[in-house]
């Protein structure tokens, strides 16, 4: 699904949060939206989902495959949400419904948009949970009984079960530790590509963006200040704010080789992720890219 955002401005109580933003997402493409906290990036995603707080005022246009959604009433927007556009949230722990089991949560969008028998819904939800690496035993668990990574997998499963054409990932990895972060990004990318959907990935961390998106927009206090391919931006950021974000990302991460960091990034391909059985989170399916390294499972003898 292609998305065209033109002249989007959002204000809450007279204070402008987002000012005249233009964003284009081609179908089957993964686009990043990066900016420091408070730059208004989450607000843009919420506007695309019709989840803006009631006090917010919105101008400009957001078109999905040419259909304008700004000005649509909540009922029409609700039919879109979960069916054509869905969202993965930042803190799954505080967003997942505490009284619904994992299975009930994942089946919710199906119940709202498709008239399937309970078995069909259950089967489709179970298949989706398997895809995100959660086996049967997780079905009747409650959110507070899951780890952060597992909660986010349920969030992703719920977002993707209705086979939407556009996924909005609002800082899906910020609340997770580094290893789980990489797993979740890899999982999202593989599932989005597999479903042929497009994705808007929102974060403040370039190192996460580098793995998740092909091109991206840089946001600073509500304005798009730069855009281009993610790799291009990483190598030659033009505006000072983008440069600062890249600089910070470089300083706070390791090079692929752990020699002293220099400003030029060497381009050898990332080490292919392999399958590791990690006790504190579940088995990660090797991503479908061709050259998967042989699975080397190394466990320290106890």
């Amino acid at each position: 699904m292609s998305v065209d955002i033109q002249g989007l401005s959002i204000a809450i109580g007279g204070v402008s949060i987002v000012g005249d933003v233009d964003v284009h997402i081609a179908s089957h493409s993964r686009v990043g939206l990066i900016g420091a906290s408070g730059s208004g990036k989450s607000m843009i995603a919420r506007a695309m989902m019709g989840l803006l707080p009631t006090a917010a005022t919105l101008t400009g246009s957001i078109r999905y495959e040419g259909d304008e959604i700004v000005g649509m009433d909540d009922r029409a927007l609700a039919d879109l949400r979960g069916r054509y556009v869905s969202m993965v949230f930042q803190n799954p722990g505080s967003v997942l419904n505490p009284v619904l089991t994992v299975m009930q949560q994942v089946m919710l969008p199906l119940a709202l948009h498709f008239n399937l028998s309970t078995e069909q819904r259950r089967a489709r939800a179970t298949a989706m949970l398997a895809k995100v690496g959660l086996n049967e035993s997780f079905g009747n668990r409650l959110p507070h009984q899951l780890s952060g990574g597992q909660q986010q997998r349920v969030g992703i499963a719920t977002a993707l079960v209705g086979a939407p054409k556009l996924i909005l990932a609002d800082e899906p990895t910020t609340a997770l530790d580094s290893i789980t972060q990489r797993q979740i990004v890899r999982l999202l990318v593989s599932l989005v590509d597999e479903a042929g959907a497009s994705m808007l990935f929102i974060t403040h961390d370039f190192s996460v963006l580098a793995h998740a998106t092909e091109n991206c927009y840089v946001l600073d206090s509500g304005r798009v200040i730069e855009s281009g391919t993610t790799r291009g931006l990483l190598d030659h950021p033009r505006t000072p704010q983008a440069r600062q974000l890249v600089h910070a990302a470089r300083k706070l991460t390791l090079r692929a080789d752990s020699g002293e960091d220099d400003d030029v990034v060497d381009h050898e391909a990332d080490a292919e992720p392999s399958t590791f059985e990690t006790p504190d989170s579940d088995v990660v399916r090797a991503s479908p890219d061709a050259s998967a390294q042989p699975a080397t499972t190394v466990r320290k003898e106890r």
Partner: protein
Amino acid sequence: MRFLLRRLALFVAALAVISILIFMALRVLPGDVASVMAGTDSPPERVAALRSQLGLNKPLIGQYLDWSWALLHGDFGVSTLTGRTISAQVGARVTVTFPLIVMGLLVAVVIGIPLGCASTLAKSGRVRAFLHALAIVGGSIPALWGGSLLILLFGRGIGLVGLFPSQGFPQEGWAAFSRALASLVLPALSVGIIVGSGLMRYTHAALGELLSSGTIDMAMACGMTRTRAVLTVGLRLAMPQLVSVIGLTFAEMITGVMVIENLFNIPGLGQGLISDLGNRDLIAVQGELFMLAAFFLVIGLVVDLLHRALDPRLNDFAERTR
């Protein structure tokens, strides 16, 4: 499970504490119970007879044990004034007070919860402000005044629009069902409106909190409209709080009921208790107070357990309380 046992144990302990409190309250009277009950100028032998009849000359502990043992068998003793057993006397009054409380609660829930939701969900700020103001004013009217206004408006005989009886309760009680019910309408309304506005404010607060939580956003992201998300997911999550609020409202309601029963001259527990207290029929008062206290402790227990059952996190949390 562990929590259930602890809660039951405490329920019994609270019951014991209350019974001791009530028992002591009567015994700490200036002067002696028997002489007070017999009346100031009654001859000494009447007082002595009363004393032995009530077993007052036994040590305090003995008296308390006799009383509590009788309580366990549901025997609340005999009223010295009317000669009837207290449990019979109270039984008759309960058949009036309980329906009144239930009708009052119905009115409160019908007013409180929908208006509470509306005051959170309403699109226009003005409607929200008006409903909020309504809740505050509604909650600030003294039961006494509310009742009298209703009498002035709707009371038969004096009210502008004589719809409902403004006094009394049919002698034959519920046999004359329609008249009995009609006579409870105004009292139930006056209790219900006041308690309803309290409920409305609690619902508003509980829902308001929920609106800001992400769970509503998640439900909307799955495909629900905002209103549907709030009314289904929101209310379900607010349920534990609402249940404990309704429990609390039930307890608050008894104050209103006691006042309203006296205002409308309804022969219920409230009016009975006040008159027994007035004519110093202390044994009756002692029994009635205990029964009321036990009734409300049971309500508290039920509400607490319901609260735990409705919120999975709580009973899980209770299992692994850090």
